[in-house]
């Protein structure tokens, strides 16, 4: 954390390398959603227009698979980053789901309906962030595996019967839809519409948040940084 940052009350929340990964994910998921849902809802006139725009069903597939390969590369990079890099390992530790997250979630529910007086105090990542992270991670893995099975259908069918591929297709489509729904509602609320960040939490570009925001939204992290003398 540079002196300038400290002077302006800014705290680094995500490093550049860390930021690049959700950025890639955002772009690729958008491409995959546009090309994928066009196929899933091919009866729809809008979907048909999208497929024409993508240059027909053949090109749609190529675009979808190129994006998919990049997404899988991003995923593999992310796994290595989280497991083996000096920067990533503490992040993974912060993102682990613990008993506390469930308690926090229940506590926040109680608080929100007026049954508790104290709103839970979060660390660097609260249950909202963790839910989104692990949801996206599990979804990406599931979609990647089923997508790969369907792509290399000749290879898959050496080992797997036809109905497993049918299953893969159902899962691939619905999982894509589920991921999209979660991103749409959860992400939109947490980092755009939430009163503390409206209209947008800028940290996905700048990597920084204000110390004051951190103190209010993630007080445990704020206190930890303060203890370490980083604030």
């Amino acid at each position, binding site marked *: 954390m540079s002196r300038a940052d400290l002077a302006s009350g800014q705290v680094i929340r995500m490093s550049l390398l860390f930021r690049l990964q959700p950025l890639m994910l955002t772009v690729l998921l958008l491409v995959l959603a546009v090309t994928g849902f066009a196929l899933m809802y091919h009866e729809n006139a809008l979907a048909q227009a999208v497929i024409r725009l993508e240059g027909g*069903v053949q090109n749609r597939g190529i675009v979808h698979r190129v994006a998919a390969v990049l997404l899988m590369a991003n995923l593999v990079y992310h796994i290595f980053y989280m497991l083996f890099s000096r920067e990533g390992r503490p992040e993974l530790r912060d993102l682990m789901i613990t008993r506390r997250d469930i308690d926090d979630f229940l506590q926040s529910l109680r608080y929100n309906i007026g049954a508790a007086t104290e*709103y839970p105090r979060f660390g660097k990542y609260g249950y909202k962030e963790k839910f989104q992270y692990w949801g996206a991670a599990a979804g990406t893995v599931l979609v990647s595996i089923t997508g790969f099975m369907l792509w290399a259908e000749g290879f898959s*069918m050496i080992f797997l019967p036809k109905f*497993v591929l*049918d*299953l893969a297709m159902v899962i691939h489509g619905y999982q894509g839809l*589920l991921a999209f729904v979660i991103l749409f*509602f959860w992400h939109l609320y947490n980092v755009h519409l939430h009163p503390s960040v409206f209209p947008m939490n800028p940290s996905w570009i700048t990597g920084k948040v204000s110390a004051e925001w951190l103190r209010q939204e993630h007080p445990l992290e704020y206190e930890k940084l303060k203890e370490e003398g980083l604030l």
Partner: protein
Amino acid sequence: MRRRVLAAVLFLSGLWLLPGAPPDAGAAISLEKCTLCHGKPEFRKLLVGGHIRDLFATGDTLKGSVHEKKTCADCHFDVAEIPHREHPKRVVCTHCHFKGNKEGAPQSDNVLAYFDSVHGQAIAKGNTKAPYCQDCHGNHMVLKTKNPESKVSHSKVAETCGRCHIEIYAQYKGSVHGAALGKGIQEAPSCPQCHGEHRIYAHKDPQSTVFATKVSEQCSKCHASIAIMGKFGIETEQVATYKESFHGVASKFGSRTVANCSSCHGVHDIRPQEDPLSSVNKINIPRTCGKCHPGATANFAVGKIHVDAKKKESGIIYWTATFFKWLTIGTMLALIVHIFLDMYGRTRRLRGEQ
């Protein structure tokens, strides 16, 4: 004098060309004159290649046909003298069957469609083997199409096409469609139900009703109809599930290489799945799929091919789809509820309430 004769000759020959006064050379030629030779039962001609052309014709030849009131020279109008020195030309039906003809001969645009078809085009290119009207409709014994005895009636037309398309006819006869028609099932398709009647095009021609991208549409005319399929206990969902599949979608968006109905089920030799000769019998599926998916294994036959995730019969696929559907709906509702609760709590905090 000579000049006058010449003028008269010119005038008379000009009359020939005048419309409304056609030369009715044939009118002078009576049936009796024709049957002098053609009435002998042994009157026939040996053709090159050993074929025999029967030239026997009497006053009874046209009896019972739609042309029974006609006589020889009405159609063979190029015969002007008896015995004719030249081989009479092929009969041209449009001599009478043209729009606005005075005799009331039925006319439709089918003749124009025919000239555009693969058969008409072959004729135009000089292929003498290509069929002309009389090759399908019959020469002397022309009957109405609805007459079961007609050569182009629903039950007989395949045999008529088969006179030239012999191998295809043999395949068709053994197929589920040919066998059904043989049993007198009127719903079973014969050749024209898929290929069209006069507008027949080569299957590689995009105008063809059986062009790769149009095959499923053609099959679905009957196979999507509950009214027809219900009679025989055949499912109609095959068409819908194909359209939902990768194959169907690719075909809809113009792929010409993707599998259509006939890629798997066969073309003229379609047989029921239980038949060991069927290309979609379980033992033949690896070979059938292998046409496009090299190295296809027996795994291709494990599980339903025309699978519908929305139907309970699909088992685990249905349950997975249903699970995901409710998971998605549930997640959506839970998130919305959570968002509103969260906003409510935060608003109270902002207002300083506890």
